[in-house]
């Protein structure tokens, strides 16, 4: 199994020079406690090509300001080809995300994307396990929707600090088995989301994960201890500070068995066993 870059494909679909665009916020909606779903317009040519796992880079400042300087990457949570919109799920954390969560319908956003590779569902896979932590929920929800649309079985595990920080079930397609864990036990399993994983490994053909690095580590422990063995069919979407988003600056590399790879182009999705976990 290989994760493939869909960058080239998007280009073909979309004509040239327009992956840097200005999007108008059309809708914002609070979700997962203090996070925000932000929907904005995108050029029609860009929308159909998007695949789950890809991201956009958003400039989090007004035109009158040089600070904060760099774009922030956000996974694409959803696309709407009819309305020609992208949706991202943003947790207010530092300066950029706080600014972003303050936008309202009508606000303009400078967007670069879609960028990066995507999760890859193998042809023979029928049963997919998704393991999400926090805002890692975003790309996996898009993947879950794609998969159910294609008639595949999906179990979607989500971990959060408290019940309040979880994704309301109404956002998750009915066909998906949605199971949650909270650090404080206020909803679902009391503990880490990765505690739930062993129960599904017999069933799953592939595992997809997105969340904090610590979650990947325990996921890896769990997976390596099972039948999946040496080359587990696990794909993880990693998070690195990024600048360019296109492989030009080499600021976002991940150490893999084939060298230092820019996670904005050769990722953010990597086969778990290709990454050298430090």
């Amino acid at each position, binding site marked *: 199994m290989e994760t493939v870059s869909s960058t080239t494909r998007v280009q073909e679909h979309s004509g040239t*020079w327009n992956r840097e665009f200005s999007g108008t916020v059309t809708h914002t909606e609070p979700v997962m406690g203090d996070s925000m779903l932000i929907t904005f317009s995108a050029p029609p040519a860009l929308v159909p090509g998007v695949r789950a796992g890809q991201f956009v880079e958003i400039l989090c400042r007004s035109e009158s300001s040089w600070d904060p*300087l760099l774009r922030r990457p956000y996974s694409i949570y959803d696309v709407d080809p009819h309305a020609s919109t992208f949706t991202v799920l943003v947790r207010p954390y530092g300066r950029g995300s706080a600014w972003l969560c303050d936008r309202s319908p009508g606000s303009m956003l400078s967007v670069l994307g879609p960028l990066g590779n995507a999760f890859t569902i193998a042809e023979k896979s029928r049963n997919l396990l998704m393991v999400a932590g926090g805002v890692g929920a975003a790309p996996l929800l898009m993947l879950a929707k794609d998969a159910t649309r294609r008639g595949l079985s999906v179990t979607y595990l989500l971990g959060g600090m408290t019940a309040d920080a979880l994704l309301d079930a109404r956002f998750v397609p009915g066909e998906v088995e949605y199971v949650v864990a909270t650090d404080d036990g206020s909803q679902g399993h009391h503990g880490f989301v990765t505690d739930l994983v062993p129960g599904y490994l017999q069933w799953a053909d592939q595992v997809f994960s997105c969340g904090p690095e610590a979650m990947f580590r325990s996921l890896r422990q769990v997976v390596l201890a099972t039948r999946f063995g040496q080359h587990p069919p696990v794909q993880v979407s990693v998070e690195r*500070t990024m*600048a360019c988003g296109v492989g030009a*600056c080499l600021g976002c590399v991940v150490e893999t068995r084939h060298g230092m790879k820019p996670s904005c182009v050769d990722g953010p999705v990597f086969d778990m066993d290709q990454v050298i976990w430090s």
Partner: protein
Amino acid sequence: MSDQSQTSTHVDATIDLSVDLAPRNPHELVLRNPVIAASGCFGYGLEYGGIVDVQRLGAFVSKGVTPKPRSGNTMPRITETPAGMLNAIGLQNPGISAFLRKYPPIWERWHVPALVNISAETVEDYAMMARRLDETPGIAGIEVNISCPNLAAGGYNFGWDPQMAADVTRAVRQATTLPVIVKLSPGAVEIAVVAAAVEDAGADAVSLINTLVGMTIDTRTRRPVLANTTGGLSGPAVKPVAVRMVYQVASTVAIPVIGIGGVSILGDALEFFMAGASAVQVGTAIFSQPSVLTALIDDIGGWMHANGVANLGEIVGCANATFRGPASVSNDYAGLMT
């Protein structure tokens, strides 16, 4: 965007955006316009495919190449600072040999001039790379990054010392007939003295500034943010320092000066031209707004049109009472420009 391109074609007919960055060199280095993508910020000219029309650029400078392959520094390698960023990529690159196999054959078919940025830790290694580039088609010129530790001088930076900078320049000059641009370090006490030294040693042009050395600390972990501890500061934050240094260097040397540091909008490019730069390089701003590169070309043309400036040389150094710059090499109205 397509509108802008049309405007620029229109403007091109009446004004001249071209610039010769190597008037002393028989090869010359004539760019169609003065906007160059800076080293380390535009990969090998391929990465922004589908986003930036690389063929419209005046030129681009490739990521610094070294004698041997380098896997670069451990992560994190970049972090943001107020109106700037720090990077400590650590010159990740495939090394001169793999580089030569991979990229110049592609560039050979391109219109846009490709400039190759080279880094080394000994004078001999600089010369060796220059020699190998000299034999390779597809390369328009060499940019010599002298902000590197000199192994022979215990790691003292080549770019801090006029003598060491001149030594590198002379060695590269002797190894190639290609246009040679020496990229100066802002760490020198008096950068104009270094500029004069590399001019005497045979540089066709100087470019400045490379990054300032900075660091930030993660107050939660209580450790430096960058794995490398320090990194290079770039972006709008450094622009005032860069403009000042360009101004000082352009007062001192007669070869063309290329301004680098925080260029993000038309006004920034104009500042560098007026300070004495014949062209600008754009680095960090590409990350925030890739369209800046072609927008700048259009906007400079539009500004010249609106201000009755037919040739960019007319404003180069105009803010500088003591400007010596390239006009004094190629024509004689430099004295009138203040």
